[in-house]
């Protein structure tokens, strides 16, 4: 099968969609929302995207890509370098280990899987920030952030499914 230059460009562009959408979610997560008490519990949107793409298109969302997106998030949020990178790589790894189960299961089961992943994420974030600040930080904000992310999962996943169908079908 030979592809013309335009077909190849088109294919590359389409293959970049998971990466582009995840970066876009990272940027949307930075928008200041003028609501009291929103900032500390703002949903961790890139976690949803990494989880979704690692299940459905691991060939287009490699662990290295997840690492780079996490690093970008670390740089933009002003937090310690490496924490989001570590978290996203761990999500990717968890999904890859359970991919067969997750691929075969319904949307509801995928959501349940995400709940477990986010609980792990909250623990890792809390541990990393506590260690880097050399103090024991309260765990509740991380837990509430994880819960809000879980609540946002269907909405974000719906958008991701749309993108998946629009750009990567066939």
């Amino acid at each position, binding site marked *: 099968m030979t592809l013309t230059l335009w077909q190849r460009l088109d294919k590359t562009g389409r293959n970049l969609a998971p990466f582009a959408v995840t970066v876009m979610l990272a940027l949307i997560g930075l928008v200041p*929302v003028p609501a009291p008490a929103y900032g500390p519990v703002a949903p961790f949107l890139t976690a949803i995207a990494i989880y979704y793409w690692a299940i459905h298109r691991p060939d287009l969302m490699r662990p290295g890509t997840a690492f780079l997106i*996490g690093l970008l998030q670390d740089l933009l949020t*002003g937090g310690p370098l*490496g924490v989001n990178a570590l978290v996203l*790589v761990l999500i*990717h790894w968890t999904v890859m280990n359970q991919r067969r189960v997750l691929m075969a299961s319904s949307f509801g089961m995928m959501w349940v899987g995400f709940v477990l992943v986010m609980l792990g994420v909250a623990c890792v974030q809390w541990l*990393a920030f506590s260690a880097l600040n050399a103090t024991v930080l309260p765990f509740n904000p991380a837990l509430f952030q994880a819960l809000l992310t879980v609540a946002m999962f269907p909405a974000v996943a719906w958008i991701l499914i749309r993108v998946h169908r629009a750009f990567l079908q066939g």
Partner: protein
Amino acid sequence: MKPRTSGSVVRLAAPLRALAQRFSFLLLVLASIALMMVGKIDALSVDNARARVTDAFAPILDAISRPAATAAHVVESAVEVRNAFEENQRLKAENARLLQWKQAALRLEAENTSLRSLLKATPEPPSTYITARVIAAPGSSFLRTLVVTAGRRDGVRKGQAAIAGAGLVGRVVEVGEWSARVLLLTDINARVPVVLEGSRQRAVMAGDNSDQTKLLYLPPDAAIQVGERVVTSGHGGQFPPGLAVGVVSSVGERGVRVQPNVDLARVEHLQLVDFNMPGAETEPSHETK
């Protein structure tokens, strides 16, 4: 799904790739941990890298933060229209009170100038103000920072105070060419030398990632009352003395808590102030960020 690459290089690269894939997870985890170490050891170059990346993304962040701000304005104005009458009454009363205060302030200013001339006191250097818009706030449980649309080319420098409306908001910790990052008072790394206005008790105000801040290094017998105003003390040469910070909100077993004057979740614009203080350029050693 077909593998995307094919060709002659595969023959040589295949075993290497298999090995790399097997260890890629481990390598990436180690790389993350190494980055955390680097951030702790060489904070300056990490700050520089961060400022560059923030600069690069500032135009995009600026663009996508505008619709969000507009939507918030629409919602707020809808609420305000409903309360317009009461709000108007309240503002009229407040205006009358403030006019009295203005007279008092003008009188005191004149008196101050004449007393200064008698004492030959050196006047404080004039401050310069840079107004900037907030374009990003990380949605994270463990960070309290803001990114604003003003940078080195606008005269922003590391260590400048960020104020909004009724008081201090934070401090500039990182400066790019056209963007800067402000560490809010409530961040766990923020430390501000303060003094309680009534009792003249000195303390250090520290954030703990909650909405309120706490006072450190108070003597155990300090008599502190709820409602007492907290202002900067000017120690450390970072901020000038007397800048309003907050109000003591509770005194109890969990320590003295301070409610910042400014609602930090709703800051849209802020002013970065260069007080032209001597020695303000140097980084204070008691802060880790």
